[in-house]
């Protein structure tokens, strides 16, 4: 929900999503093209700076959104740092610390960091609805898009249903003891499953009543300065790639 708030509240809401997507792509390419970890780190820093200063996403909020993926990144690095070494047929093994030195870890962290920054830039400045519209224009298969649209919408319907049912259970002491909690959780799941089924059915009926015959079609939003935005984004992306490749 934090991402949602940023995506709708940032300064670049009205910028064409295609431009933001292009810039994000530039960031990605830069992240993978970076010859040195320092170059990738510079790309990451620059993209974060642009997100915070340019699009006006508050820095604390940015950090909060970035923390979970950074955690995963850390885990990934740790698994690179250790490695298990089995010796022959015997059952004993040794744990090796840094079998191949710091270099691959630094490389991984910096590159992933840059890619993450680019992705967060897109996610924090572009609402899901714009992204879906963009993907539609990029000729992503209709089926995938429909699933995305429905999932996105259902996410909110169900988080509401889940919340309501849970609250109702808690109000009747459903979670007072671990035993009761497990029981409540079970009936919650059963209840939600039924709700999902019913919802899917009623959604289908509602779509039919508005003359739907299978394919979902929606109107695409229009943006004022697509050309201009795209040019700026292309320049920005090229700059990032140049920085990544050119840095010694």
């Amino acid at each position, binding site marked *: 929900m934090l991402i949602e708030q940023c995506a*709708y509240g940032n300064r670049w809401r009205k910028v064409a999503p295609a431009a933001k997507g292009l810039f994000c792509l530039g960031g990605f390419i830069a992240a993978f093209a970076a010859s040195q970890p320092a170059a990738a780190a510079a790309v990451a820093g620059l993209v974060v700076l642009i997100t915070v200063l340019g699009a006006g996403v508050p820095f604390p909020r940015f950090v909060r959104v970035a923390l979970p993926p950074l955690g995963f990144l850390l885990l990934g690095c740790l698994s690179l740092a250790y490695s298990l070494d089995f010796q022959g047929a015997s059952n004993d093994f040794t744990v090796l610390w840094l079998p191949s030195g710091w270099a691959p870890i630094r490389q991984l962290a910096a590159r992933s960091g840059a890619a993450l920054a680019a992705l967060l830039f897109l996610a924090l400045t572009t609402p*899901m609805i714009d992204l879906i*519209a963009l993907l539609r224009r990029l000729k992503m298969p209709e089926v995938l898009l429909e699933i995305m649209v429905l999932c996105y919408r259902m996410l909110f319907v169900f988080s509401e249903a889940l919340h309501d049912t849970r609250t109702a259970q808690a109000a009747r002491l459903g979670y007072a003891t671990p035993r009761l909690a497990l029981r409540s959780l079970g009936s919650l799941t059963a209840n939600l499953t039924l709700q999902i089924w019913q919802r899917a059915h009623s*959604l289908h009926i509602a779509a039919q*009543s*508005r003359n739907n015959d299978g394919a979902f079609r929606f109107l695409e939003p229009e943006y004022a300065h697509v050309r201009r935005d795209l040019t700026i984004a292309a320049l920005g992306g090229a700059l990032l790639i140049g920085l990544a490749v050119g840095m010694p």
Partner: protein
Amino acid sequence: MKPLKHQPSHRRTPVSSAAPDFTYLSPHGLDSGIRRNDEILLAFEDVAFRYPDGNTGLDGCSLSIVRGSRNALIGANGAGKTTLFQHANGLLRPQKGGIRYAGRAIDYSRAGLRHLRSEVGLVFQNPDQQLFSASVREDVSFGPLNLGLDTETVRQRVTAALQAVGMEKFADRPVHNLSFGQKKRVCIAGVLAMQPQLLILDEPMAGLDHAMRAELLAVLDELHARGITLLLATHDIDFAYRWADRIHLMSSGRCTSAFAAAELPDNAETLSAAGLPVPGVVELHRLLVTRQILPAISSPRSLAELIAQLNNTQKDFQ
């Protein structure tokens, strides 16, 4: 459908009435219940429907809706209101009896249903059932795009429909950030964008607070002034008496009776047979007439009207 300019209604029109795109007005000007033409738009003839699990949905229901009129369908929970509406839109098919739209029996072929659903718009009771796109504009565009209209026309219709329900400012908002009342209005816009002749609303007032009801009512008045025929389900007899031209009663799958709302005071027995109270304003007015405080000329339809009558009589006395 001949596009015909409609006389501006005397009813209040708080929502912007600049709607260039709604030129599909009914040729039958109709105001405050005075019918100039009694063309039946929708007719149920002895319709019966039983759900697969054996529940009775409709049980020999007959009902007719006059073009351009405001209709309230009153019935307890489980009376079959939703089932009836789904029949009107062609979602369910009668197992017995028949349904006529604009004088013709409903054609259940693909093309026939397509036509019917573009003429009869159905707004569901639960907005979350109907809204499934992420943004307001996208959702409203869903119906007209299904009609096969070109992008430019759809864009115009979406704007006009959002204007008609006073939601144009929210066009680019995500649906899940809206309040319940706003979601309801988006649902109505989504159906309006298909430009129906008959708009059916399933318990539109349920779950709305006082202010939201007033807003929705203003929207409905505006639509009625544009010549759209309205049919809505409600439990609220006071509201039905105040708002509707015609009241239809329903219980356990049967359409038990129908009368002009103005004749409601004469139908007290029918109401009580259906377990419904007589509207408070009717009883109060009756009492005031017996006490000779008010003359027995016209029955007020709402407390506000009654108070206005009382005020006028006071002036006469002085």
